[in-house]
């Protein structure tokens, strides 16, 4: 089962290595990982999507909490959190296909970020599932390159994960 874990850490050099190393040596599989500073520049947020049983999730949370640089650990549930990934997709696009691809991008609420004679780069931010669907939609045109970020997530409503 997939779990989305929001981890607040001290914004020091080496903290990401400690967190990633912990996952590796304890045998926890990471599906995706996204790191960024929070509104407090001394604090970074690492959002991890990991795969494992309830036992594994409990161990992940406890072991993360043992790291001195980890300030807070919170597992977010998909039905009560907004989750987003960002993707940049470069597709083959002849001048004739431009209108067609632009309308696909518009329907999906994507944005055209770059255009060249025979390619188009579309950016889209959405849930992982919607990005997967979008990618499939573009596949017949010939995908040249896909760049995706890890998932970031935030709880719905007024709940927050902060120091």
């Amino acid at each position, binding site marked *: 089962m997939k779990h989305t874990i929001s981890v607040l850490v001290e914004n020091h050099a080496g903290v990401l290595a400690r967190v990633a190393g912990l996952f590796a040596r304890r045998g926890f599989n990471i599906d995706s990982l996204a790191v960024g500073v929070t509104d407090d520049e001394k604090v970074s947020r690492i959002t991890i999507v990991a795969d494992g049983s309830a036992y594994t999730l409990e161990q992940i949370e*406890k072991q993360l909490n043992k790291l001195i*640089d980890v300030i807070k650990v919170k597992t977010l549930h998909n039905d009560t959190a907004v989750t987003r990934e960002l993707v940049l997709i470069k597709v083959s696009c002849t001048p004739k296909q431009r209108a067609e691809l632009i309308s696909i991008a518009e329907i999906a609420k994507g944005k055209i970020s770059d255009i060249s004679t025979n390619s188009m780069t579309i950016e889209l931010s959405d849930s992982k599932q919607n990005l997967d669907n979008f990618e499939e939609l573009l596949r017949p045109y010939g995908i040249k390159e896909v760049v995706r970020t890890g998932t970031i997530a935030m709880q719905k409503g007024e709940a927050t994960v902060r120091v």
Partner: protein
Amino acid sequence: MTVAKAMTECLAAEGITTVFGYPGAAICPFYDELENTDIRHILVRHEVNGGHAASGYARITGKPAVAIATSGPGALNLITAIATAYMDSVPMVVITGQVNSDQIGRDVFQEADITGSAEPFVKHSYLLKRPEDTAEVFKRAFYIAGTGRRGPVLIDVPFDVQKAEIDFEYPETVDIRSYRPSSTGNGNQIKRAAAAIAASKKPLILAGGGLFTGNAVELMRKFAEHTDIPVVSTMMGLGAMPTNSPLFYGMLGMHGCKAANNAVNTCDTLILLGARVGDRAIATMKQRDDLTVIHVDIDPAEIGKNLDVDIPIVGDLTLVLGQLLEAVSGGADRSEWKNKLDSFREDKPVEPAPAGYVNPKQFIRTLDKYLPDDAVVVADVGQNQIWTAANITLNGGRFLTSGGMGTMGYSLPAAIGAKLAAPSREVVAVCGDGSFQMQMMELATAVQHNVPVKVIVMRNNYLGMVRELQERAYDNRLTAVSLDGSPCFTKLADAYGIQNELVDSPDKMDAAIQQLISSDRPYLIEAAVEEYEKTIL
């Protein structure tokens, strides 16, 4: 002052009087300043043993002890000792030299990423990059190592940083927002535990090594006596309950005794106190639905990790035991339960050894007969460890061993550390001829620094425990377990100027052991053990 000088000031401020280490170029600025202090430096003969000696020292004082090494190979040699301390929750601050800051990452001479390499085995680590952080980093390192679940903390200090000039003031307090180590147990869980204990007909305490690191040994005894609950122990918890207490039923596990293992498989409520119950400890434990498990530990990650738990209590053992003492009333009649446990007790007679040998169990029992009550016995790893654990009595004494990691070569350096921590106590290292040859260079340390530790080498010319495994699981194909080629250990002791004796018959045992204990200098006994002697009889 220089950072090197400030480092020595930090150690002094933490009350450090003895450190263990091995110098090298990258740590020389610090060593140069160490010479100007009253701190005693014990030069070991291999860095790993500096770590083990600090471990032995810390386990006796209960406070973080210090091990030092240079950069690169020196630091890397310490890793096994760091990991050994980590597994057994021993408080330790490890200081390593590092190459110049601007050379880090260029693979220069004696460079190793020690904070990276040691990461899986440290409670925390610092690469001291900014000279002005020195005092804060040391304050935090000692605080982290010596509180909560104890463990090793590493401070890696580049050569140029050691020479940098700083204004020094040691902080009086420390506050780490993401680290809140000490806590009382959740009141609700305490109530549930008290109710479960009150309802229990056959409760049992499982005492672990956390009782020692958490300074909760006395409280645990008080709790056991107040509630009249029988006690068994993990290997790390040996000595928490006196062997001669009628409530004590021995060590459980793969190499444990029948009474303890039967107790664990018969009880209806099991109260784990500072025991993480490693796989060897619960190897003989049957999974049952009718068992209520109460687990008290300062580290929430240990609760539910190896054993399913019904009532988890996270907290400081002293605080939680205080809460439990208030919540659980005494006066329950446990005679039926204790009678049943008493029926499991057995006193196995010792088989006489063939001519030219001593029976190792009889040897340990004889050693035990003459040792003072407060003696410290350090067992190594292998058959010698089990022979010692099973036959030593602990009524005020301590039993130290590498329980979690099972690190061979632990006993002599740890004994040297323990003896320096408690000079008035008798300290004996018991090892096999395999483990002895991993640490025998430390005889020189004992001689150079006049540390009167006593060493028993159980010589059976085999890596006995591995040999037994091969007999059992590999169709008796013995592979790489013969120790042919070993030196004469008494002659080796002679070479170090250490008094010694070969004990190869039972009638020599008493006098030799008395001689060993009465000596005020290092002393070595080589005990001749029959080659195919079994771990358990």
